[in-house]
């Protein structure tokens, strides 16, 4: 059963009621006695970036590899662009429409950048032009260089080029920026956002909070083989309803108990005041400070970061049983 599609200038357009690009329900996979994925369900809509966020060994890569057709699932349903990724008979048709960037860099050393991309372009029915892919990943200056002379970051960009060259409708990115320096990461993020703007659906895994925050339309936090939270970067784990935190250094000569609101002492003489209504709480605190002729040094107000939420989510689920990290 293929999704109903229509094409305009080669771009796939969504129709109302179009089924998701990826649907996963009750996915399970064990390696011997170790359960790597235990009942994972999520959907990815066409045209969005969906992030699977989780610590190492949480089951992200296993889940992704089942959807990519590398691993057989033990139980559950998986639908990728209307195909069952476990069905070998339709494997070629599915692979013509997806692009993969795996975690490990693997490129043959003796071809040039251009040759490597041109070779893979020959595997697809409607590839992107080789020169376009080279400039997309920023390897124009290295196009004639042998792969073995590239730096690690350049090899990863070449790997990304191989994921893009087939002009995929759906792109899988397994930890795409691990090992990148900060500016290379920014560039990779720009590239990934640009692909979404061009209509590519992207399913990525990451253990970087800022990456999920910067890229994902929606994300799921996976821990110990289960999805522990799902939502948008702004709302996941009740982040939008969580209390704001007012932080400052306690003025000299005062105790936390002297403040008009309950405060938790922190490091280096700081205190944190959780507040459901930060406007009112700030007014009370600054009023108290002015009334006592003192100041609230280093005053900040923030919401819990995605990282705070993530650590809370992954800690609580890890606490249920001992997790061994590979």
């Amino acid at each position, binding site marked *: 059963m293929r999704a*109903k599609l229509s094409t305009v200038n080669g771009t796939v357009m969504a129709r109302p009621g179009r089924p998701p690009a990826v649907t996963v329900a009750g996915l399970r996979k064990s390696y011997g006695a170790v359960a790597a994925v235990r009942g994972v369900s999520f959907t990815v809509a066409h045209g969005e970036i969906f992030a699977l966020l989780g610590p190492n060994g949480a089951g992200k890569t296993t889940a992704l590899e089942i959807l990519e057709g590398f691993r057989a699932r033990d139980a559950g349903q998986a639908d990728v662009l209307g195909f069952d990724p476990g069905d070998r008979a339709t494997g070629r048709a599915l692979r013509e429409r997806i692009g993969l960037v795996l975690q490990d860099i693997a490129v043959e050393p003796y071809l040039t950048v251009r040759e490597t991309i041109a070779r893979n372009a020959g*595997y697809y029915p409607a590839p992107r032009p080789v020169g376009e892919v080279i400039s997309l990943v920023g390897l124009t200056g290295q196009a004639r260089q042998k792969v073995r002379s590239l730096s690690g970051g350049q090899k990863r960009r070449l790997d990304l080029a191989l994921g893009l060259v087939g002009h995929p409708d759906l792109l899988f990115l397994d930890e795409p920026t691990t090992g990148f320096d900060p500016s290379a990461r920014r560039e990779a993020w720009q590239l990934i956002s640009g692909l979404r703007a061009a209509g590519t659906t992207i399913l990525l895994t990451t253990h970087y909070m800022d990456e999920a925050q910067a890229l994902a339309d929606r994300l799921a936090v996976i821990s110990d083989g289960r999805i522990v939270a799902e939502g948008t970067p702004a709302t996941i784990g009740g982040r939008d309803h969580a209390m704001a935190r007012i932080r400052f250094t306690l003025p000299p000569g005062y105790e936390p108990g002297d403040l008009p609101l309950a405060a938790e002492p922190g490091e280096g003489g700081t205190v944190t005041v959780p507040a459901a209504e930060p406007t009112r709480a700030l007014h009370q605190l600054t009023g108290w400070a002015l009334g006592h002729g003192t100041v609230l040094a280093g005053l900040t107000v923030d919401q819990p970061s995605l990282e705070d939420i993530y650590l809370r989510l992954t800690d609580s689920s890890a606490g249920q049983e001992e997790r061994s990290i590979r």
Partner: protein
Amino acid sequence: MTAVIHRRPRRDLALVWHQVRYEQLSFWRNPQSAFFTFVFPVVIISIFGALFHGAGHSSYFYGLSALQYYVPTIAAVSVLGACYSQLAIVLATRRQDGILKRIRATPLPAWAYFLGLLGHCIVVSAIDVVLIVAVGRLFGVPLPTHWAAIMVALVLGAACFCALGVAVASLIRNAEAAPAVVQLVLFPLVFISGTYLPIHSAVLNQVTGVLPVRPLNQALLGPFAEHTGFAWHDLAVLLAWGVIGGLVAIRRFRWNPRAE
């Protein structure tokens, strides 16, 4: 109604040719593979040519001159190197490096990948054999007459040893061990099959006659030096080994660097 995005299926033959071209490019740029699998047999036949140049026909070489004997056996060993050794090592290395997994991630069908490798190995073998025959000619070895029998023996031999190379790559666990395992099997077998020294033990020849190396030697010796045609019995033995290698490869070949 299912509307399907129109995507032209690339013609399969063109896809195999595409693979052969890039395998060739990779091979000739790799100094190690180009030297050991390609130059080595040419060096050996040149040394033998210098050593045995002018030596007459002898019963030790079954009534042939030494070089008449060595041109086909060294041609056979060049096919072994270009097919069996190369594939076993290259595939074990590519698997360990994750390159095979990456290939598996593309729509390239497995059969096209392997046919591309086979075509590549046949090209390397053919060039090697032509060079070996040319060196032999320089040292006065007459050119063979039955080219059809030579072609059949070379292609079947290449296919058989490619299949065995893939089979061994399927059984090897890590790439570091690959060259050692490959040589461990090959070197004694090449030696007792009469490649470097004629073997006059009837018992040994009967044993090696049903193993893969001697039949290729014999299938080339006939049309090269003895003006006989197709060595059907030897070709049948090669075919059988090719089928065995193919079955092991189909059942045991892994694309993934790590066993599941």
